């Protein structure tokens, strides 16, 4: 058994290229995504169709550009130019000021401002329309300093866990999870499928080792590798991205190990279904990649999905680990608050291992 | 029968991998129409030398021509004139016999009519009619090897290179395989075959014995036995290997 595990280590460490890929890729990805990926909306290119060209319109434009949300990308002359410019794709919104803004305002009338957004991207469109509208309202408050409103309810808003609304806090746990999930599940499934394809699995199975031992021996080195990966990613998150570490470190390490084991058992399960490396790869790549990214709450909020998908998301192990990470790192809760998530991961692991062992046993009988 | 027209000429051919010399300045000639046995223990450099001759590996130094073409500059012409069967089975397991023949015939530029005629003849000869449309993975190893050999001969090459063609095959099938080799030789195809079965060496017109990258002996089996004063090629080989070891000790 010991010799067998050592053999597995040799396999992995002799392959220099795979090692570089295995340890280098997660680091590159976490750095890249940590800095680059955010669902905040910033630097949106806009164009202005200013029929007023007076103080009010200029002040509003100034305010917009000062906000950091908008980048001015040119002035239009007529309404007809709007559609072609949207079609080119760069400009996401056009702000239209009606004629004689100043005069309308001083005369006590209503001065029209129109925000036209390219809603092919509904998220950006909605957000920038809201930003623009609130900037216009700010300006309106500026020019009405003497009007006070009666009976005012003042909501005091506290943004918990992430007061600066940083995108990083949302994306680091997700990136970590996706990397661990895919690397561990893929590695084990392929490594076992490879032995099957090469015929060496039979050699191992006729040896006095029990099938469980064979599989455990294959998996053990990967547990170590994935743990190293996880540690590196966590350290990067803490030191580079200033992720807080509110909860217990021990609990974090324990749950990470649990998640690694869950994904490895998923890998084992895939390898019992797949006969060739190619099958194993395609199943773990095409089958796991998008569902893990999209249904785990990594990018899209699960609560907003239609109910069948909310149900489906429960079988994605990544979903539960992301919740654990957010709880332990950002919310700083104790592990007792997360018993449900932990229990689900344990159950998943046991189920996957159970099914796999059964499948191997059938093949041997 | 004597052969005098060289079709492969090798002069001081050397291949190094880093500090390791796999092929050490070997020189020999193979004559047109002969069955040339390229013998040696595992790791003696046989396969490396062969890969240079078939144009998929570049030598470190030395020269050689195969079918009149230079192994440095004219590898693609060489490839048109030779057939090759590697020690790993290298037809497509997931394709049928028919499809493999179509594919390899096709990329050697045979017309579909030629392919049809050839495959008909081949199937009849091997008695594979009922398996013609089955994936190759269903065939036993011996059949696969015979088929691979026939496919390598499909485009009527001048020379055929066989790398350990009978590895892992039972004695009866080996016998049949050698009959096929004789048949090809009879039709004028030059055979270049590596093997480590010393009994097979007896079937060759001439054999070379390779030890540690060098050719230690080259002659007809009969004369080699005579020279070393032994009764079988196996003993010749053992002698050679022992001499080599002694040399190393000294």
């Amino acid at each position, binding site marked *: 058994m010991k010799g067998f595990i050592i053999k597995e280590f040799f396999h992995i460490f002799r392959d220099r290229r*795979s090692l570089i*890929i295995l340890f280098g890729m997660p680091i590159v*990805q976490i750095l*890249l995504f940590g*800095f*680059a*990926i*955010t669902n*905040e909306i910033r630097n*949106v290119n806009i164009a202005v169709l200013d029929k007023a060209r007076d103080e009010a319109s200029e002040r509003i434009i100034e305010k917009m550009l000062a906000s950091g949300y908008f980048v001015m990308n040119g002035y239009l002359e007529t309404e007809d130019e709007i*559609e072609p410019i949207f*079609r080119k*794709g760069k400009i996401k919104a056009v702000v239209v000021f009606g004629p004689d803004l100043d005069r309308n305002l001083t005369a006590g009338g209503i001065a*029209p*401002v129109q925000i036209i957004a390219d*809603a*092919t991207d*509904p*998220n950006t469109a909605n*957000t920038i*329309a809201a930003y623009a509208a609130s900037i*216009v309202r700010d300006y*309106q408050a500026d020019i*009405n300093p003497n009007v006070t409103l*009666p009976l*005012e*309810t*003042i909501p005091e*808003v*506290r943004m918990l866990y992430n007061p600066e*609304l*940083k995108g990083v*806090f*949302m994306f680091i746990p997700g990136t970590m999870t996706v990397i661990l999930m895919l690397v561990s599940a*893929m590695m084990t499934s392929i490594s076992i499928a*490879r032995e099957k394809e090469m015929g060496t699995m039979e050699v191992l199975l006729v040896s006095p080792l029990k099938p469980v031992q064979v599989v455990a021996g294959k998996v053990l080195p990967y547990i170590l590798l994935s743990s190293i990966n996880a540690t590196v990613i966590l350290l990067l998150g803490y030191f580079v991205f200033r992720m807080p570490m509110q909860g217990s470190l021990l609990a974090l390490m324990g749950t990470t190990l649990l998640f690694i084991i869950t994904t490895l058992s998923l890998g084992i399960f895939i390898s019992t279904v797949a006969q060739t490396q*190619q*099958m194993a790869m395609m199943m773990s790549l*095409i*089958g796991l*990649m*998008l569902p893990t990214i*999209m249904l785990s709450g990594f990018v*899209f*909020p699960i609560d907003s*999905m239609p109910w069948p998908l909310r149900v489906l*998301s429960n079988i994605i192990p990544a979903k539960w680990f992301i919740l654990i990470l957010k709880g332990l790192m950002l919310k700083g809760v104790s592990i007792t608050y997360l018993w449900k998530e932990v229990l689900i991961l344990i159950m998943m692991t046991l189920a996957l291992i159970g099914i796999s062992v059964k499948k191997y046993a059938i093949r041997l009988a | 029968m004597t052969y005098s027209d060289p079709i492969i000429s090798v002069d001081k051919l050397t291949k190094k991998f880093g500090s390791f010399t796999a092929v050490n300045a070997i020189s020999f000639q193979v004559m047109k129409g002969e069955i040339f046995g390229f013998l040696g223990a595992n790791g003696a450099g046989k396969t490396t030398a062969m890969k240079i001759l*078939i144009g*998929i590996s570049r030598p470190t130094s030395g020269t050689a021509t195969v079918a009149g073409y230079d192994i440095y500059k004219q590898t693609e012409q060489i*490839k048109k004139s030779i057939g090759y069967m590697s020690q*790993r089975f290298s*037809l*497509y397991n997931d*394709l049928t016999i028919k*499809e493999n023949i*179509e*594919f390899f015939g*096709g*990329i050697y*530029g045979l017309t579909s009519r030629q392919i049809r005629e050839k495959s008909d003849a081949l199937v009849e000869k091997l008695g594979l009619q009922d398996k013609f449309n089955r994936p190759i993975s269903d065939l036993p190893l011996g059949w696969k090897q015979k088929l691979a050999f026939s496919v390598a001969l499909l485009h009527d090459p001048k020379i055929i290179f066989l790398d350990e063609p009978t590895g892992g095959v039972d004695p009866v099938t080996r016998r049949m395989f050698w009959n096929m080799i004789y048949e090809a030789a009879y039709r004028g195809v030059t055979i270049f075959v590596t093997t480590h079965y010393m009994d097979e060496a007896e079937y060759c017109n001439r054999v070379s014995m390779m030890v540690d990258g060098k050719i230690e002996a080259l002659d007809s089996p009969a004369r080699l036995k005579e020279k070393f004063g032994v009764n079988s090629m196996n003993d010749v080989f053992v002698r050679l290997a022992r001499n080599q070891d002694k040399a190393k000790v000294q």
Partner: protein
Amino acid sequence: MKTIFHLLKKEFRQIFRNRAMLPILFVMPAVQLLVLSFAATFEVKNISLHIVDNDQSSLSRDLTQKFLVSDHFKLTGISFSSDEALDDMQRHNTDVILHIPEHFERDLVRNQKAKLMLSINAIDGAAAAVENAYATTIIHDFNENIRIRMADQISLTGQPKVLSVTQSFWFNPELDYKTFMVPGILVLLVTMIAIFLAGMNIVREKEIGTLEQINVTPIKKHQFIIGKLLPFWILALVELGVGLIMCRVIFGIGVAGSIWVVFLFAAVYLLVVLGIGLFISNFTHTQQQAMFLSWFFMVIFILMSGLFTPIDSMPHWAQVITEFNPVRYFVEVMRMVMLKGAQLPDILPQLSKLLVYALVMNGLAVAGYRKVA
């Protein structure tokens, strides 16, 4: 030409012979397009809300009621202490806490001013901002209502100057996310199939040993690469076609522009993707290595494509990296042509960049393939 034809025939036979593989190639992408398209929404719905009403007045109950009838919120807890509410949030049960303090009604009527507390789980900063906006809008409406109700008790000082702001959303007035996401997800699925198949293909023949047999044939390098490229190119175009039909039939998203522009662009795009796959295949020794590399690039391609998160919000250096991401261009172009009806001249910049990219990648693939052992 005939040689290439024989290679094509062989690849197609191998693809369609592999019964276990066919569902992965054809069914899995279709199912994912169907299912995942519904998941891709940044719309914030079903916000779990916890209400702490320490006032228990008629006004506080009015406000609570206003939250309950809103489509955006769903009530997940009611309690009388902030601690209990916070506890609920830490258990991931709630994302927004509305705390109505004691004497809310009294303060509002007496002092004309009263405070409310909103605590929002801001780990997802973007969602938090939206949740905040929804909650404050409800509170604002509530405020307006009580002003109207108590109009007799109040008087306005001064005449306010009013700017009327109207918002219009073009091309997608309903702000439907599926319209935005489906073309992009289709791009991803087609890309994954293409890159993984191409990436594994040559290295697989290396591992099995058949590549050596091909290397000793007089086949030309470019013939070999074309023979390896074309089958997957055709396959991916067919999948794209099936996907577009699904878009039309199931999601009702047709191609606003010309379908030929889509296919023209896809044809060039796939050359890039397949070139990358073959390049990976050439430079690796085992399928495992090839797969890791393709996975590495694929994850980067997906997350840096602007499909899920906006490229404009990335730091400048990251935006420069996206210039080298072919997926980015295809996602852009699909959205432009399918949703906005962009014409060929509109997509020429993207098309010409990809053409150059295709030439480089396939040049490298041909150059990198050596007919050696």
